[in-house]
């Protein structure tokens, strides 16, 4: 094992680190947020383009399709840096999930149709896998797809689709066969946001990002837009979410680490009783526990990166659930401690602290919270 970066990885880390430093100081971010208000897309088109120019969306695209052919470790490096900066431009669903899903499980036609454009940052994709009644159960799918005119017709609704308001395409799960168990008879489709019958209602999320409720009313989808095999979609949906989880786990590490640094800086300068409050042991011990929480999250983000493309489902699932459970628990701990150590300032929207806390909270509640993944992990004991 070797946990040090090679030269390319170091260059990647440096270049994203520079981007975050240049564009994502807290004040610039706050100004941009204020300028967006609550209107779509809730992030900067110019910065999206810059991320694309840096090759970020090409990272998980194979070289044959104009990509870089990176893997989970490179994704982890990028996500950690994006987490440190609380970067608002949505990356995971397009740059990680869609790119990896199509490259790994898509037909040649899908690869030709999508990968180059993803690599160039010309497409935005959202994952629409969860439904209003389903909580975090990927198999609980009421959206149905019926054969129609040599293709499919989709009816149903998807809930809290992250960045769905600015998506060009959706990855949608739908029931193609009434099946004996919920796990069978699901299929994965790529749905064009501009197709007739697609309606999208966007709204903001707790962490100043955007999401949407998606309705599909008789949306026509061609056979060519099926990802993987018909009726075998659950395994792919699960695989896709695990790719996203590995990325989020790394983003959470970046958030937590930066938030711990900011908190230590704050208590090192804030004075009460004539001394920096960071000189008090009660506070120092809390920072030690924050640092430990970051380390635990980092350890399992590494484990997730090691196993997320493992062909053995149990190995992959186990690593993803462990990492997500830990990211949630550690993130909550670090966020709560940071808020407490910032005192009243921690409660204001004017300090970076709260924004990290909100992002960490959102990460926990996305694609299965800590409790959910501890439960899933229990299947592998």
């Amino acid at each position, binding site marked *: 094992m070797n*946990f040090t970066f090679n030269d390319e990885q170091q260059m990647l880390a440096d270049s994203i680190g520079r981007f975050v430093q240049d564009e994502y100081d807290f004040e610039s971010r706050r100004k941009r947020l204020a300028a967006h208000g609550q209107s779509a897309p809730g992030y900067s088109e110019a910065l999206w383009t810059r991320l694309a120019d840096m090759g970020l969306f090409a990272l998980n695209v194979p070289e044959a399709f104009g990509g870089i052919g990176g893997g989970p470790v490179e994704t982890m490096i990028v996500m950690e840096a994006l987490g440190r900066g609380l970067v608002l431009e949505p990356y995971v669903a397009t740059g990680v999930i869609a790119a990896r899903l199509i490259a790994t499980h898509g037909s040649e036609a899908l690869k030709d149709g999508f990968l180059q454009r993803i690599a160039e940052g010309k497409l935005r994709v959202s994952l629409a896998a969860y439904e209003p009644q389903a909580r975090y159960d990927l198999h609980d799918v009421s959206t149905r797809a019926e054969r129609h005119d040599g293709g499919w017709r989709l009816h149903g609704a998807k809930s809290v689709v992250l960045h769905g308001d600015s998506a060009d395409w959706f990855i949608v799960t739908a029931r193609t066969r009434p099946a004996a168990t919920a796990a069978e008879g699901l299929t994965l489709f790529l749905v064009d946001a501009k197709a007739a019958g697609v309606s999208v209602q966007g709204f903001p999320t707790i962490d100043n990002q955007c999401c949407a409720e998606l309705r599909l009313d008789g949306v026509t989808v061609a056979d060519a837009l099926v990802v993987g095999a018909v009726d075998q979609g659950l395994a792919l949906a699960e695989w896709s979410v695990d790719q996203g989880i590995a990325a989020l786990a790394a983003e959470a590490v970046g958030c937590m680490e930066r938030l711990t640094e900011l908190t*230590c800086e704050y208590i090192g300068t804030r004075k009460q009783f004539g001394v920096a409050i960071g000189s008090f*042991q009660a506070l120092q011990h809390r920072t030690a526990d924050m640092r*430990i929480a970051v380390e635990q999250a980092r350890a399992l983000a590494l484990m997730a990166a*090691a196993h997320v493309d493992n062909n053995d489902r149990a190995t992959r699932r186990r690593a993803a659930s462990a990492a997500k459970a830990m990211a949630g628990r550690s993130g909550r701990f670090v966020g709560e401690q940071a808020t407490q150590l910032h005192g009243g300032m921690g409660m204001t929207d004017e300090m970076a602290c709260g924004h990290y806390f909100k992002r960490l909270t959102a990460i926990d509640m996305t694609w299965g919270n800590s409790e959910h993944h501890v439960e899933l992990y229990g299947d592998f*004991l």
Partner: protein
Amino acid sequence: MDLHESADEQRFRAEVRQFVAANLPDDIRAKVLGFLRVEREDYVRWQRILAARGWGAPGWPKDQGGCGWNAVQRNIFEEECFTAGAPRQMPFGLSMIAPVLMKYGTPAQKERFLPRIVSMDDWWCQGYSEPGAGSDLASLKTRAELKGSHYVVTGQKIWTSFAQWANWMFALVRTDASGKPQRGISLLLIPMDSKGITVRPIKTLDGGYDVNEVFLDNVEVPAENLVGEENDGWTLAKFLLGHERTAIAGLGMCKRLLRRLKEVASTQAKHGRPLLQDPRFRDRVAQIEIDVLAHEWSLARLISLEQAGRGLGAEPSMLKIRGSEIQGELGRLLMECAGPQALPFVDEATVFGYEGLGAKAIELNPLAGVYLDLRKVAIYGGTNEIQRGLIGKSLVAL
């Protein structure tokens, strides 16, 4: 970055696993995995089996008769030995006094002591803590005065693990009380059969007698048993603390306890089904297994960084804290597995081969003791509060 064990590392792991499986005596394995009493002779027997294979001193350099293994190999070795049920290699000689002797000892001291550490002809104990010097070790008061060719030592040590089995003790003693507490401390090697030494066993919460008080009353120690310079013992003590810092993680013990927990939770029933299938208990086992995984990956990461030449700062303190917290929780869960059977505690039943009353449920007998005993991990080797202080100070610039 390469997040998978290399072919060499996998081969090495397999080699260790095979050797331990083939050579660890069954009675020792049963004692260790069953949390029964492990005797002096068991430790010595296993150490000699390892020494015969050339694995007696994993952390020592090759030219000193050690394995010359790097930290990754040592970690793999420890993990495999622990999970297979081998007794731990006693650290007091091998990884505490030996590295100090290698760096600061005289040629005569090295020649005399090092081989007998590997063969375990000598059993060492550590004379550090005193009733008034725990976390604040430098305030130790045991006095040593040079009179002719001997130091005369008077004072008291406490928490001395296995002093009852030891024939040597390395002890920090005060040779000068005039300056700062850290000055004036010396490191002496003291034969335990010296006149004036009394060992009083301390009974601990699990009913065991691993720790002792050692009273020293005008004990004469030959002057040649001083290690390093007189009054410079604190330097040696700090060197000792800085040695194999990642070994403090206790990952092998975590994995052994976890494996045992899953076994016991599979055999004990709740509401007519295995406890491991009870949703509440299962979540807790899942949670602690996730914690063990994080601990394992964190240790691997820190070892790798250290090998790449990045000095470790307060990071080993994180390993100590997490390792102890995880062992504590595993002990708690193990005890809870026993349910009402956590109550009976038959002292004789902690001895291998017991066939008396209640022998059927006897595998549960030690579990409450294990739980209680594991609290010590958060206390010894620098309490978790001391460790948190070290981490906190490294984080907050004042």
